[in-house]
């Protein structure tokens, strides 16, 4: 079997969100000596790009997209260590959580899943988190990007608190910060010194990718 047909099988399985089949194809591609980087670029990333496009065009709907994203996350667990071994740049790590006194969960989870779908290693910290939890997570996971979610006008300032805490800990420069949630706006993001604002999960992936390639 040629590598390109395996990559297209990988893509197909990923777009269909069939995780077991996807992992099987990845394992056999690796056994046949296909480079992890090729599997990622020609199989996985290509497929997730297609998923993203189909979603925006209205040809796929959210539960399908999430299946693909979950499958992608499983695939990356196999591929990521191999990429690191061979010194290939990975998509990086994304840490996300909902700020203190805010219990809204769903939007944050959606963003987390979409970022998994984009190939990031995602650490989802949960909801109602003290600034210190974000600081500790940045120290521990060394993420490329930190995402914060706030759905309440009263908890929005907590995002600024987290940024201040990161500054105090001397690690603000080590991470890009993206914020979002119903009451959050572009202006607010700038006010508190975040790097990017995104209005929804799809925009998050686009903006993060743009930011990463600009960096």
């Amino acid at each position, binding site marked *: 079997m040629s590598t390109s047909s395996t990559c297209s099988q990988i893509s197909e399985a990923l777009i269909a969100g069939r995780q077991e089949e996807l992992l099987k194809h990845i394992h056999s591609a690796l056994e046949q000596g296909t480079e992890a980087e090729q599997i990622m670029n020609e199989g996985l990333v290509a497929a997730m790009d297609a998923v993203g496009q189909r979603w925006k065009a209205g040809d796929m709907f959210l539960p399908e997209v999430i299946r693909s994203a979950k499958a992608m996350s499983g695939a990356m667990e196999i591929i990521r260590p191999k990429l690191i071994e061979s010194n290939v740049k990975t998509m990086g790590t994304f840490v996300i959580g909902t700020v203190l006194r805010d219990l809204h969960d769903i939007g944050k989870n959606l963003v987390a899943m979409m970022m998994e779908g984009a190939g990031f290693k995602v650490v989802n910290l949960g909801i109602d988190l003290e600034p210190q939890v974000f600081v500790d997570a940045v120290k521990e996971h060394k993420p490329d990007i930190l995402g914060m979610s706030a759905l309440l006008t009263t908890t929005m*300032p907590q995002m600024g608190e987290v940024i201040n805490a990161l500054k105090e800990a001397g690690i603000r420069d080590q991470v890009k910060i993206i914020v979002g949630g119903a009451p959050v706006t572009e202006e607010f993001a700038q006010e508190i010194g975040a790097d990017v604002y995104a209005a929804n*999960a799809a925009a998050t992936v686009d903006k993060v990718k743009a930011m990463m390639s600009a960096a």
Partner: protein
Amino acid sequence: MATTRANQIDNITPRFALLSDDQKQRIYLGMIKTLNDTGAHVHHDEARDILEQHGARVVGERVFIPPQLVRRALSTVPPTTTLFNWEGEESCRIEIGRTYFGPGPTPPFFIDPDTLERRKYLRKDAAMVARVCDALPNIGYVDSLGSISDVTNGLADLYEHADQIQNTTKPLMSWAFNVENCRDEHRIGIVLAGGEAEFRQRPNFIHYGEPISPLVSDYHAMSKCVYCATHRIPQVYTPCSIGGATVPASHAGQLVVGLSEAMVGVVVAQLINPGTCVVIGGVQSILDMRQSIYSYGAPELSLLSAALTEMVHFCGLPMFSTSGCTDTKTMEAQSGMEAALSIHAAMLSGATFVHDNGYTESGKTGSIFQTVLDDEIIGMARAIQQGIVVNDESLALEQIKRVGPGGHYLYEDHTLEWARRHWRPTLMDRDSYEDWDRKGRPAMRDRVVKKTRDIIENYEGPAARVPADARKQIDAILAEAEERVRSQSRPKQLQ
């Protein structure tokens, strides 16, 4: 006429029936089984203890509620509760069969009445919204349409409550961040009622709180629920269930979970203080799987809300439903379409409180203009809901005979009498082409803006009547709350 017909009914108000008896029974049993087998998280020690003492199984934060506890709670909910305004006049009766439409709480943004642009919600908006709602004939209770951004962080709820209660003669629905603010709102209610016992006799607001979908009663929601039950403050305890996200995408599954998460509050409240008023229901809609928004204009919102109304009534409780809201950002045909359908459905289902009239942008922006538009739609829906009177007078056989073929009814006394009952538009365009043209071809949006601004400018409301002494006491409560918040945030800043 000397004779009457046997079993005569002059008028039946139309109600639609969505669910069969068997369907209701199955959804009810689904709720009973879910509370018993799946249980719910209750992040509140006292509430968990009370539940355990009465036979619930408690494992960590999780509480499994047996059927008999639910049935017992349902047997003590009051069949009717009367609310009063701050002047002590009866303002509404919370019972199955009476319907009060109102705005909704807390969106972060608001449409500025002057510029028509989206901006943050300000303190002055709360009093204005209360006044406008007071003036609108079809709005039955008051809420804020925003959360105040220009007061101390963490006190938006309290300022809103203080300002709104004084600016309306209609019932007020208030929310709170936490139990401390809830207590302060209660204190304001007590000041205006003239004492704690007087407040119990004549409660002048209803509290609104939310458990977390799916199946979590967080500490704040539960502590407010416990506080209200203890002090006999009527309360709404309802989730925002998101079909496909926090609850199953199947409507029946959503009804089971939505009903279950609210029922936890009913059980706790009734155990604490049997006979205290609890209203359940909530926002019931779906996650739009393309845009990933919680849709406030979806037909599913109307369908689910009407079905849940039947379920809540099946349980013997008053329903808190949703209507008059839209996913649009500016007033256009879609705003009217979505609002009209949901208002009509809510009216025909007979919910008690129907909230969110005035929500736009999927619940993110409040618009008093949308509320004014909704007021007109509610009037139309009510005209339909009033049904048709069928009796000897309305059948008008004598008049029909007198006028005969080819005549007309314009001169008849009967017409004078009955035509009065026809619904009369205040916003709908029925002008002739020429009149409409002469007036500058106003669209609905223009007419709504004009009517709204007229009310804002000219309608006074009752605030000027609040006694100076009461106002002083309210200001003192606000000042204490400021001090409390300051002292709470101090240690944080030091560290």
